[in-house]
């Protein structure tokens, strides 16, 4: 509620009819809870510039853990003034307070505009505040008033056990937090990064060169900080804080811990080039931050003389670059799976995370002196083919139609019978009889009949159903 509304005597919780009586030309809107929550999240994003530890206090509040950050903004009072002034300029009405415990600060914001409470003076600061500032449930607040406890000081003057007996332990816990007698941690929206480097600009920057130069400068700083602890970054995030409050975060992943500033720089360059929705500086960025949100210890390995491990590093670097441009899911390696279902025999995994596993994977040995038993190209979804009635019920077809072309079978081998994994108890599917067939042109196909004759291919009355045939792959 803003000052103008307060001046004419409106209050939160007043019925619309009463509000109309006070101010006849008032306009009424439905509350949009989702939009409010979104606006709060945007403000929280913006507040990331002050501290990495920002927590939501829905519906209207934010907690900022500013331990150790205040000196960056010239002290607590200046920081508080800066936060309030910036948010007011963005069009929000702000109440803010700095106190030793989050609950105390929250109680203060409900009653005063801005206040800084020195360490240990929480109880004195909230003494004269009305009880609603505690933010307890309505029933509790009403109960306190009815008991004649008008201010927080009144409540605090009673014995804790009396209060606990009347209003429950949760309430006394909260009271103690407000009085600064115990502290509960806030739960930040995202975990604080392990390492971060940032740069504030007195004058907003907007040109591509400055941004790129800033990112590589920050990468240098970050690498130095990580090196001191023997760490390398696996996930890096660059956050761009725009003057108008919008925040854009761009992340890159690396398969191996990154320890070189040049590499970080290169990964971000790839990412920027490939952004579908390019970085929009608007009126410029006034803060750019680079943080390592996931780090791994760097193991210094002795290099082999055959330079194979160096090759692997080069591969990993190439994969990281491609992944930064195309997305990690597009760079794939394959791992063998212990199953005989053809489509599940191979697992595709992102190469960034599974490269070393793939290089040492044990693939089943092929049989010597055998032609290939599996096709080189396999369709993700087997394609249905038209087959005239087979001369032998269980045998391969003599001709079939695939993609509107008819193929006459010259050679055929099979069946290779593959039963589905009934023990996994998924949707019951038929047993497949696979045939390897060659047509007159020399094309070789892998086709199967879905279902066994007689046992599986009959309806409830025992009538025979025509089997369906599918083409699953093509041999080289």
């Amino acid at each position, binding site marked *: 509620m803003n000052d103008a509304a307060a001046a004419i005597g409106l209050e939160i919780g007043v019925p619309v009819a009463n509000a109309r009586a006070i101010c006849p030309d008032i306009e009424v809107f439905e509350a949009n809870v989702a939009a409010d929550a979104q606006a709060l999240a945007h403000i929280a994003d913006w507040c990331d510039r002050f501290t990495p530890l920002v927590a939501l206090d829905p519906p209207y509040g934010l907690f900022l853990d500013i331990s150790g950050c205040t000196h960056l903004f010239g002290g607590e009072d200046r920081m508080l003034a800066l936060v309030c002034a910036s948010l007011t300029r963005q069009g929000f009405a702000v109440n803010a307070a700095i106190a030793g415990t989050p609950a105390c600060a929250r109680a203060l914001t409900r009653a005063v505009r801005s206040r800084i409470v020195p360490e240990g003076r929480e109880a004195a600061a909230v003494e004269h505040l009305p009880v609603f500032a505690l933010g307890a449930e309505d029933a509790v607040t009403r109960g306190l008033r009815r008991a004649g406890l008008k201010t927080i000081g009144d409540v605090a003057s009673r014995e804790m056990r009396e209060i606990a007996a009347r209003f429950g332990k949760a309430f006394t816990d909260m009271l103690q937090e407000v009085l600064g007698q115990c502290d509960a941690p806030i739960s930040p929206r995202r975990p604080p990064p392990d390492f971060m480097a940032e740069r504030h600009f007195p004058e907003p920057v907007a040109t591509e060169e400055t941004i790129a130069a800033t990112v590589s400068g920050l990468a240098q700083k970050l690498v130095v900080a990580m090196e001191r602890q023997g760490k390398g970054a696996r996930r890096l995030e660059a956050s761009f804080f725009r003057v108008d409050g919008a925040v854009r975060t761009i992340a890159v992943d690396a398969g191996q811990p990154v320890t070189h500033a040049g590499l970080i720089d290169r990964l971000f360059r790839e990412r920027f080039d490939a952004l579908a929705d390019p970085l929009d500086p608007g009126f410029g960025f006034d803060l750019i931050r680079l943080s390592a949100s996931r780090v791994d210890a760097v193991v210094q390995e002795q290099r082999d003389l055959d330079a194979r491990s*160096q*090759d*692997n590093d*080069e*591969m990993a*670097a*190439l994969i990281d*670059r*491609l992944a930064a441009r*195309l997305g990690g899911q*597009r*760079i*794939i*390696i*394959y791992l*063998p799976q212990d199953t*005989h279902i*053809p489509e599940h*025999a*191979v697992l*595709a995994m992102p190469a960034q995370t599974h*490269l070393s596993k*793939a*290089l*040492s*994977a044990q*693939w089943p040995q*092929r*049989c010597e002196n*055998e*032609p*290939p*038993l*599996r*096709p*080189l*190209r*396999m369709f*993700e979804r087997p394609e249905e083919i038209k087959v005239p009635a087979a001369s032998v019920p269980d045998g391969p077809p003599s001709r079939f139609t695939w993609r509107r*072309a008819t193929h006459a079978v*010259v*050679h*055929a*081998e*099979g*069946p*290779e*019978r*593959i039963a589905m994994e009934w023990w996994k108890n998924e949707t019951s599917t038929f047993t497949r009889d696979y045939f*390897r067939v*060659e047509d*007159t*042109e*020399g*094309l*070789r196909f892998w086709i199967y009949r879905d279902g066994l004759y007689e046992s599986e291919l009959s309806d409830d009355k025992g009538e025979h159903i025509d089997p369906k045939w599918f083409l699953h*792959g*093509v*041999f*080289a």
Partner: protein
Amino acid sequence: MTGARMSTLASLRDAIRHLEAQTLPQQVERVALGHAGVDSTLQGGLLRGALHEVFATETRQSASATGFAAGMVQRLSNYRPMLWVQQDFAESEAGALSMSGFAELGLDPCRLVLVRVPNAETALKVTADGLACDALGAVVCELWGEMKTFDLTASRRLTLAAQSSGVSCVMLCTSSQPAASTAETRWVVRAARSLSGSAWSAWGEPMLDAELVRNRHGQRGRWIMEWNCDERIFREPAAHSQPLVAAPADRPHPTPAPAGGSVTHLRRVG
């Protein structure tokens, strides 16, 4: 000597070095494919660190062309990892590259990294990046349909990248007609029929009908080749490339192994 003269001299030396680099035979490394006729036409085999093109003019020939390209890459890559760049559309049209099938051809799926790309431009960019990384043995770039983007400039860029790093590049083009390029060799591959005459008999190794339609340093030709999955080389098709009597596929061995007797090699199926 004055500074200006020194720099003139240096630039002249540079120019001479540049001219020599073009005319002097570079260190060429050729890899035999294994088929005698092909290798003699290619004067020893395929050139490593160069651009080769494999075409399947029709979609249904895609698997044969893929097999030929895979065999080429196996010969060229020298047991180093390979990058396979694949356009998304190729996967849905011609089927995904199956690692089981890859292993059945005698190739090693461990060394393959697949990159799925949405379009041909990206495919060419990724291929150029891969060619710059000399930890790789070869890069395969699989394109689909008529190639507007793969023009002379693009192929020249890939050729230069392959030359400077020594990584071989194989373009696998399906459903398209060859266009002007700087490729070292260009092949049009189709499936070839198996040799065995009687119907219902098993076939042998993969048979390919490979036509060499472009060869920068020699003649062209057309051969029927067989890929030998065990020795991992191409061969002339042998008259009896397979055992005369195939072992029964789906039945247990007729005579049970005597107790303490020999170990019978059974054919693996499924």
